[in-house]
């Protein structure tokens, strides 16, 4: 009997779905409860609606399934002829309305709380770039870019031989109890103090991004030309990981967010450290670098910033991303090369790196590109040259270069 087959198939399907429903309570499969008052309220709201929906579903499907088993022609039943009832229609319009009101009131309450920006204690400006975040602490002036950590970036390239399972094992120390961190690690974490109401100001420099940290229940679109805000008051120290949530182009999936919440003292000393580090960046761009030093730093910068488009061997992707190996830009005039890296190419995916990378990084990556992938210009570009360009000094002389064998040559920028 086919109807028997159907019945068994239906039963097994239901059995298949039941455990799936039960798992919804597992932490890893559910919305995180998070570490702020708001995130906890959102979680409670979510669970409440989930249970209401389950109850509605159970009632409707229960009646349906009962009817399907009992009211079958094969059981010899004669069909009833009723086909309308105003009372019933009114009941099943009004009852859902009441349920909706019951759901809407607490939701509105949480929403009003979320939108209350008063009494904030600090502001952090978050700017979305393709494909990294820029953080600026409004009070202390500390600012930096934050992007996917280079080993992750290498591992996620097509054809990379890195075994994700064994490379990104959550280490006992750092990531204990955190679960997997592949694609969730950045080079520079956003460090914030616990117990303070922090406003996040969101904007973007190119396309729309969306800054999302599930544990804080914050997600806001970063829109070029406009400013948005939300806030969080983190209660527990810890590392909270998030992602860009709005499609922002090729590497949308690879711009994670990492927030490290620490005690106020730790935060203060971190800020102090950052401030002195920012001072040393200036130092780095003023001193003379050795060729080999630039190449090795440049290789890392390349892997973090250039490789995903221009590929590991600088071969590019034909039709999409030009090759660096043997290219005119990377083997011809160094000024054009500098201009391309610093200012990008308008109307293409080549973005502007002058405000993303430090002087030293730009000099290093250009030096690397001109001496790797079979390019052998032998050029050495000093960070000081980039700095002088950035400072708006008028340099009529071309960036001077030194031949390879002379490893310790200084640049020609005088």
């Amino acid at each position: 009997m086919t109807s028997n087959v159907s019945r068994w198939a239906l039963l097994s399907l239901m059995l298949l779905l039941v455990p799936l429903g039960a798992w919804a309570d597992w932490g890893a499969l559910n919305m995180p409860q998070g570490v702020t008052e708001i995130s906890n309220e959102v979680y409670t709201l979510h669970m409440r609606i989930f249970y209401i929906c389950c109850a509605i579903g159970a009632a409707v499907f229960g009646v349906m399934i009962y009817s399907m088993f009992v009211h079958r022609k094969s059981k010899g039943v004669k069909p009833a002829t009723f086909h309308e009832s105003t009372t019933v229609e009114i009941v099943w319009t009004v009852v859902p309305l009441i349920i909706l009101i019951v759901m809407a009131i607490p939701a509105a309450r949480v929403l009003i709380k979320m939108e209350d920006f008063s009494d904030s204690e600090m502001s952090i400006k978050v700017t979305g770039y393709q494909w990294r975040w820029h953080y600026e602490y409004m009070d202390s002036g500390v600012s930096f870019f934050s992007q996917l950590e280079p080993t992750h970036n290498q591992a996620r390239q097509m054809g990379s031989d890195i075994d994700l399972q064994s490379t990104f094992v959550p280490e006992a120390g750092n990531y204990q109890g955190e679960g997997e961190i592949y694609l969730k690690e950045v080079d520079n974490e956003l460090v914030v103090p616990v117990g303070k109401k922090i406003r996040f100001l969101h904007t973007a420099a190119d396309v729309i991004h969306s800054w999302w940290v599930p544990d804080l229940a914050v997600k806001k679109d970063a829109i070029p030309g406009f400013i948005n805000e939300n806030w969080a008051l983190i209660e527990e120290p810890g590392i909270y990981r998030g992602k860009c949530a709005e499609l922002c182009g090729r590497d949308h999936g690879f711009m994670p967010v990492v927030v490290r919440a620490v005690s106020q003292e730790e935060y203060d000393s971190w800020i102090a450290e950052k401030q002195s580090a920012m001072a040393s960046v200036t130092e780095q761009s003023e001193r003379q670098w050795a060729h080999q030093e630039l190449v090795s730093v440049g290789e890392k910068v390349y892997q973090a910033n250039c490789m995903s488009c221009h590929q590991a061997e600088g071969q590019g992707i034909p039709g999409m991303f030009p090759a660096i190996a043997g290219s005119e830009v990377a083997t011809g005039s160094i000024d054009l090369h500098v201009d391309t890296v610093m200012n990008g190419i308008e109307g293409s995916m080549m973005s502007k790196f002058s405000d993303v990378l430090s002087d030293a990084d730009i000099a290093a990556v250009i030096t690397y590109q001109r001496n790797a992938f079979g390019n052998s210009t032998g050029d050495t570009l000093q960070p000081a040259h980039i700095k002088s360009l950035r400072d708006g000094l008028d340099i009529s002389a071309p960036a001077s270069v030194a031949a390879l064998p002379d490893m310790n040559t200084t640049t020609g920028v005088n």
Partner: protein
Amino acid sequence: MTDLPHDPPRRSHARVAGKMVCLAFAMFGFGYLMVPLYDIICDITGLNGKTGRLSIAEAQATQTEIVAEDRKVIVEFVASINQGGSWIFKPMEKTMTVTPGKMYHASYYAENLSDNAVVAQATPSVTPFAAAKYFNKTECFCFTRQAFEPKGSKDMPLTFIIDPDLPINVDRVTLSYTFFRSPNQS
């Protein structure tokens, strides 16, 4: 077997189709109408941080109203540069503590780092939304496009007044400018 021919259509097909075509064109027009409509809604609600603009006279009229002397609001100034072009763009002061109803001056500094003359435009945005329509400017560099000489720099002034009706739970207003290379360079 009844053999009724089809009634001639009560309304002609052309008329129904014509009406529908009109509806379609009207809705196409409505799509465009949403552009000014959206601006109006933004002005009314402060959606997307569109700020108000007052003439000096209006501003002075507001100023003569009773000023809530003891109320302090922090105004934060934020600067962003959109991609393309080399710029320095920053507020001269990062925050100001202001009293609603009083007029204040602030300024931004912009410098063109490139070797080309560039026309740029700064677009303003205010958050929170609840504050946007109470944030009025009488003078702003954002009202006009700015031409920069190669390596040229400018101080860009701004005069604003916060309406005393600013909702009481707003204690901090962020004014953000984003610097764009103007699409039209002439």
